[in-house]
């Protein structure tokens, strides 16, 4: 037993050695002529241009980068490739930054995450010793007894949650988007991707080659191979051919972050999201080196073999002085040789594989032996020793699957490199429907079931010898060329060859801290115990234990978890499987998806006039509309303009009262351009109208309008408008601002089946329109048109096509604007709706305002219009109707024809109209004094069956305003009717519960509230 403390100085004592580098040609990424300098945890770090934050930290001997999620254990580099969560650090405005991926830049201020106190002395590190009290899923088993205590615990637990800190004052930066189209996209520019791109480009395909790293080459840039003597020369040759090829576009630092149906690929590069559509796609995404599970496998200084290789070859960082290499394949031998070549003393090469005669004589073994490195086959590291940095390893003989001898020996070292095998980078392929099956012989996952236009090559396809990797890339390209129609050649399968995965690199320790998942601090027993608790499916294991749910999304935990769960539940690894990989592939800033984040909305042709007049603009569907026109200095915008703000409410009320009185006494002008408009032309125009809307339209005379109601398949009133017949074969029908698109869709939907001889066009934005209303409106309009406006010549409910005169001015002769005029009475005054082509909208507004000047014309807004129509008892669809309002409830039976065989929704309307009714929309009235008492009903207040707090709800207030014209509070409400007792008779008193729970009794009255004889609109 060798748990005796190792007291010598660890290799890495923060900062005391200054920047140290290996000589060239190590440090492929570095530009040694330019230095960078930044802060980490308050200390100055010096590095070279080309360094990542992480490589610069290592060059300055900072090996502890972060603290772990649950136990606050020291963590440092693991992959050096941005594949793990150990390297997450905090920038001032950005949490969770991958230190081993993001380039170091001068003036950066980098701090550690998930630390209470300092990185070296984290107060929460005590949690490391309480691990046994926090078994897997412990939070499901505690904190709720006695009842109510959870609320207290929850706060405590939440405080410990989260990794980085969000900068709440961060202002979004400029991000945008671009589309790209290619014959073939190759994802990953390692040897497989590069050879695939070249082969396809030679065959005439237009190729985009994507690489997430700053340089091309993949493993050729950092790894050594037993079948290629000079990988760097091969890399340079491939790059040269790619760069000189006219058919290949290359993007580096570009991450293909998802696969969506039909090769729709979001690619992140710089501050831009490229949306790439590709006919064919080859994923040469490589594979992730896997760790060995043993106690202490997370101590800084324990790294993947490939990480040590990257440190040396890419960043010229010497990863340690005394190394042990733990391997289950030949790659560990290559790592040992590379370390030795750079002056690292390799104290042992521990090969988990059994001793085999064939290997004993292999050239690699000989080379390692010649370098004086002791090889121990059939052994493993059972425990890594040390606290903030690795100090030694406990080495044991392997006696069975995951089992070791009771005693071993300690090797002092400051670096441990792990080579246990590889996991294909299957994430994007999984998103495309790829399935993983485990090859027990090779102890490796294979991917199959891909779409026809998606191919894989290289180590993601279980090819590991470099020649096979390159051949595999070429064969994938041949297949893509054939499917692109550029070549007839048929691809040939490539052999797998080299074995790289050790079948059981898991050595569970009774004292734990043998991590399967570094992100979530999950140990081997946590995974096994989850299955023992009954969570046997790998998806349930994930959900119960949180394995794979951290920032690295299971890149290293998926394989050991699948193996452990399979063993624990007595199934094979294929049956067990891995959890589903979902987009995105790497964590992506929301800014990429949001892009420029523009928020389009529609302005009418008269918009600028409203703004000039100081209108309070309000959103109406996709439009902005003037609500009312407050006096100068009283415009409240933004949240201050909320009707719940008493000041804003007072301004609004004063405005709409004044504007409404003005319309009633003189003349007003409102922009109604946002109304929907649909043109129905053709011999069957009337027939289509007749089938869509509830009224009869066949006999509607030319030159007349008719009210049009649309009901749904549920018999609910969903839209209304005015249908103008300008000719036998020409209707122009209006629809509500927010409903018009659905109405248009419905008409065209049906007519694809009916085949009526009509042309249906949504002309909502082709017309601008105003309503000129008030007793003086005729006098204003007379000046601008030659149409006969007399009550006989242009009576109420008539419509006309004519023109509006533009008087001669500034040397311009008199001109005219074509216009459609409708005499309708929504606000209950003599009035004309005037529709003109949108480009004349502003001119029309100006003409009417000028012509109206002698009559004191004033604009009025939508809010005023709502009051005016309420005085007339006209409903607004969706304000006075809801998802259940049928024509009977709205007293609109008169607008539903019983004579015709069909209209949209007829079957349902017939049924609901016959059923006993339970409510009805009525008018009600209250004395104006309720306004002062604060008991005025508001829209949305409920009507009760009786004046009792617990009485049944019978309805609700849909509209309610103080009307200066009537000098009372008037409103409309649903009230009980028929089966729910009748509250609808004029004179009934209905209990309305208003703010603060008070009840007021309102009197039901007949509609309209004003001008019951309807004389004003018919003048």
């Amino acid at each position: 037993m060798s748990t005796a403390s190792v007291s010598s100085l660890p290799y890495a004592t923060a900062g005391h050695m200054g920047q140290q580098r290996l000589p060239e040609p190590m440090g492929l990424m570095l530009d040694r002529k330019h230095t960078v300098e930044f802060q980490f945890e308050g200390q100055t770090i010096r590095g070279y241009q080309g360094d990542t934050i992480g490589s610069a930290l290592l060059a300055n001997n900072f090996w502890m980068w972060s603290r772990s999620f649950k136990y606050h254990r020291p963590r440092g580099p693991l992959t050096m490739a941005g594949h793990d969560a150990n390297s997450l650090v905090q920038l001032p405005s950005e949490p969770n930054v991958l230190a081993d991926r993001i380039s170091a830049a001068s003036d950066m201020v980098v701090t550690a995450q998930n630390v209470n106190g300092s990185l070296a002395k984290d107060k929460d590190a005590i949690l490391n010793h309480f691990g046994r009290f926090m078994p897997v899923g412990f939070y499901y088993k505690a904190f709720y007894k006695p009842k109510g205590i959870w609320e207290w615990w929850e706060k405590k637990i939440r405080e410990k949650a989260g990794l980085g800190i969000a900068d709440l004052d961060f202002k979004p930066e400029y991000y945008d988007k671009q589309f790209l189209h290619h014959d073939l996209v190759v994802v990953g520019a390692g040897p497989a991707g590069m050879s695939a791109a070249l082969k396809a480009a030679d065959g005439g395909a237009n190729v985009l080659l994507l690489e997430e790293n700053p340089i091309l080459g993949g493993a050729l840039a950092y790894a050594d191979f037993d079948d290629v003597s000079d990988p760097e020369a091969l890399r340079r040759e491939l790059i040269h051919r790619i760069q000189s090829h006219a058919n290949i576009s290359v993007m580096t630092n570009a991450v293909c972050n998802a696969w969506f149906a039909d090769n729709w690929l979001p690619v992140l590069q710089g501050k831009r999201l490229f949306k790439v559509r590709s006919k064919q796609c080859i994923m040469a995404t490589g594979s992730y080196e896997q760790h060995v599970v043993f106690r202490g496998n997370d101590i800084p200084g324990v790294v993947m073999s490939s990480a040590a290789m990257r440190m040396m070859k890419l960043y010229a960082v010497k990863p340690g002085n005394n190394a042990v290499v733990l391997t289950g394949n030949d790659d560990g031998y290559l790592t040992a040789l590379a370390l030795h070549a750079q002056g690292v003393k390799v104290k042992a090469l521990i090969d988990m594989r059994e001793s085999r005669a064939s290997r004993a004589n292999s050239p690699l073994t000989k080379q390692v032996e010649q370098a004086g490195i002791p090889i121990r086959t059939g052994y493993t590291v059972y425990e890594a020793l040390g606290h903030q940095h690795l100090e030694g390893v406990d080495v044991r003989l392997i006696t069975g699957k995951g089992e070791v001898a009771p005693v071993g020996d300690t090797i002092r070292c400051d670096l441990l490199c792990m080579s246990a095998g590889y996991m294909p980078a299957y994430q994007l392929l999984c998103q495309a429907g790829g399935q993983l099956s485990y090859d027990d012989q090779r102890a490796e996952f294979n991917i199959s079931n891909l779409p026809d236009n998606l191919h894989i090559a290289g180590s993601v396809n279980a090819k590991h010898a470099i020649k096979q990797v390159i051949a595999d890339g070429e064969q994938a390209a041949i297949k893509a060329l054939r499917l692109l129609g550029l070549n007839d050649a048929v691809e040939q399968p490539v052999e797998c060859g080299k074995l790289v995965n050790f079948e059981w690199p898991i050595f569970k320790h009774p004292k734990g801290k043998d991590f399967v998942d570094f992100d979530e601090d999950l140990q081997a027993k946590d995974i096994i115990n989850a299955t023992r608790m009954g969570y046997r499916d790998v998806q349930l294991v994930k959900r119960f234990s949180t394995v794979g749910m951290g920032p690295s999304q299971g890149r290293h935990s998926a394989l050991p978890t699948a193996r452990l769960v399979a063993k624990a539940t007595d199934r094979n690894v294929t049956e067990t499987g891995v959890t589903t990989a979902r987009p995105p592939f790497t964590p992506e800033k929301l800014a990429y998806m949001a892009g420029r984040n523009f928020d389009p909305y529609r302005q009418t042709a008269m918009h600028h006039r409203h703004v000039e007049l100081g209108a309070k603009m309000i959103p109406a569907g996709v439009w902005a509309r003037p609500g009312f026109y407050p006096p100068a200095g009283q415009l409240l915008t933004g949240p201050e303009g909320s009707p719940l703000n008493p000041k804003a409410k007072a301004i609004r009320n004063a405005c709409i009262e004044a504007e409404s009185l003005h319309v009633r006494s003189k003349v007003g002008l409102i922009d109604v351009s946002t109304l929907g408009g649909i043109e129905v032309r053709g011999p069957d125009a009337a027939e289509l109208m007749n089938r869509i809307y509830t009224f009869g339209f066949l006999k509607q005379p030319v030159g007349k309008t008719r009210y049009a109601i649309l009901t749904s398949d549920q018999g609910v009133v969903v839209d209304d408008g005015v249908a103008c017949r300008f000719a036998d074969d020409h209707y122009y029908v209006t629809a509500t601002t927010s409903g018009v698109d659905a109405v248009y869709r419905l008409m065209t939907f049906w007519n694809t089946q009916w085949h009526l001889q009509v042309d249906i066009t949504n002309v909502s934005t082709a017309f601008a329109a105003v309503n000129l209303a008030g007793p003086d409106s005729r006098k204003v309009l007379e000046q601008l048109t030659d149409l006969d406006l007399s009550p006989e010549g242009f009576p109420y409910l008539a419509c006309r096509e004519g023109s509006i005169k533009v008087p001669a001015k500034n040397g311009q002769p008199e001109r005219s604007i074509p216009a459609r005029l409708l005499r309708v009475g929504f606000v209950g005054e003599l009035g004309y709706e005037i529709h003109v082509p949108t480009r004349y909208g502003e001119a029309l507004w100006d003409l009417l305002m000028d012509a109206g000047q002698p009559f004191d014309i004033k604009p009025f807004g939508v809010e005023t219009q709502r009051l005016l129509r309420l005085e007339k008892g006209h409903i607004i669809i969706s304000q006075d109707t809801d998802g259940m309002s049928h024509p009977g409830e709205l007293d609109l039976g008169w607008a539903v024809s019983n004579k015709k065989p069909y209209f949209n929704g007829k079957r349902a309307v017939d049924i609901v109209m016959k059923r006993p009714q339970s409510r009805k929309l009525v008018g009600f009235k209250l004395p104006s004094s309720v306004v002062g008492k604060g008991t005025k009903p508001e829209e949305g207040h409920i009507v009760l069956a009786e004046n009792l707090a617990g009485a049944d709800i019978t309805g609700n207030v849909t509209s309610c305003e103080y009307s200066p014209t009537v000098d009372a509070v008037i409103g409309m409400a649903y009230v009980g009717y028929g089966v729910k007792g009748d509250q609808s008779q004029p004179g009934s008193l209905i209990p309305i519960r208003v703010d603060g729970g008070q009840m007021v009794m309102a009197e039901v009255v007949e509609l309209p509230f004003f001008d019951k004889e309807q004389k004003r609109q018919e003048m």
Partner: protein
Amino acid sequence: MPFALLKYGLSNNYPFEKDADLPPPTALKKRYDVVIIGGGGHGVATAYYLAKYHGITNVAVLEKGYLGGGNTARNTAVIRSNYLTSDGVKFYSESVKLFKELSNEFDFNIMYSQRGQLTLAHTDSAIRAFRQRTEVNTHFGGNTELIDPQQIRELVPTLNMNPGHQPVLAGLWHKDGATARHDAVAWGYAKGATQRGVELHQLTEVTDIVVEGGKVTAVKAKQGSAEHTIECGIAVQAVAGHSTLLAEKAGFRLPITTYPLQAMVTQPVKPFLDPLVSSPAFHCYVQQTGRGELVFGGGSDPYPLYNSRSTLELKEQLLAHAVELFPFVANLKLMRQWTGLTDMTSDYSPIMGLSPVENYYLDAGWGTWGFKSTPICGQTMAELVATGKVPELIKPFGADRFSEFRQVNEMGATAASH
């Protein structure tokens, strides 16, 4: 430190067999009194209440995948009762009451977290609708109020009050709004049900419903390549996302259209957002989980589909809106995007109760409101199974309401609030 944790820590052999939440798999029997199709939250809750309140334990829950792996796993765990109709509010309020007791009832922490839900109004019409929801909710004992921009600022200081051209004008503040560990709800019910003798069979896919003389008599199921015919007295279907497909096997059609609904989650950051915040106008809602992740959800996909793939388009739209509402989240990183299948009815209310097939009961049409109904749905469905009578609380939600045009319209109270 809670006592429960000491217990685990001091044992070298934890977990013992008795500590297991779910029993190991067993063989299917030939016959059960009740077969529940679908091992999601609803299915196991129904089984739990059948065993607990009605002593009916010869029950099998058949799940084609894993326990709670459908929409129970995919929903964003919003619990609320601030609906619009009286029928809806009464039903969901009962559910909220039951939820609050579940951890202690199960002896399993579902991490019920009452954070309050804030829905934003950007228009006058939204304020009208919110006022009505406030009043109806208050009437039935709920804890809901209409609040002004100043109160919103105090609740959520990080919210952009002027997003796009649609400033925040008011909020519907539903104090009862909560979240819970959604998986744990299904596990807790499964634990309680199996402890009482109910059998849970995962990886068991129902392939057909046997109907004789208008009455269900058995279901056919597949386990791997093995096929079984399982006789039953009563069958309940609780297969959100696939309700129409299963009903078809029973020989009838349901007025349901299935749409994908997507959600997404960021990396965890330190807590800054307590309430669940939702903006129907921006088709976006957000909450911060106990782990510190931000969860975003929004509107359904625009076309019907039975496939739970993710799309780029929805992600772009939803996150653009999220950044409008909380600009600083532009710099946070998205970790995962996923999709569930929502069975939408035309009135945005569920379908519960009898079906055209005798002894075959429906628990369907759960659109985006299924998780929050889990306890009350389980309890009322169990009562229906045990007594054969439709409980008063779920009478309004019968499938017959569509042919009779008696809808329970919750459309406005459902959009992007889930």
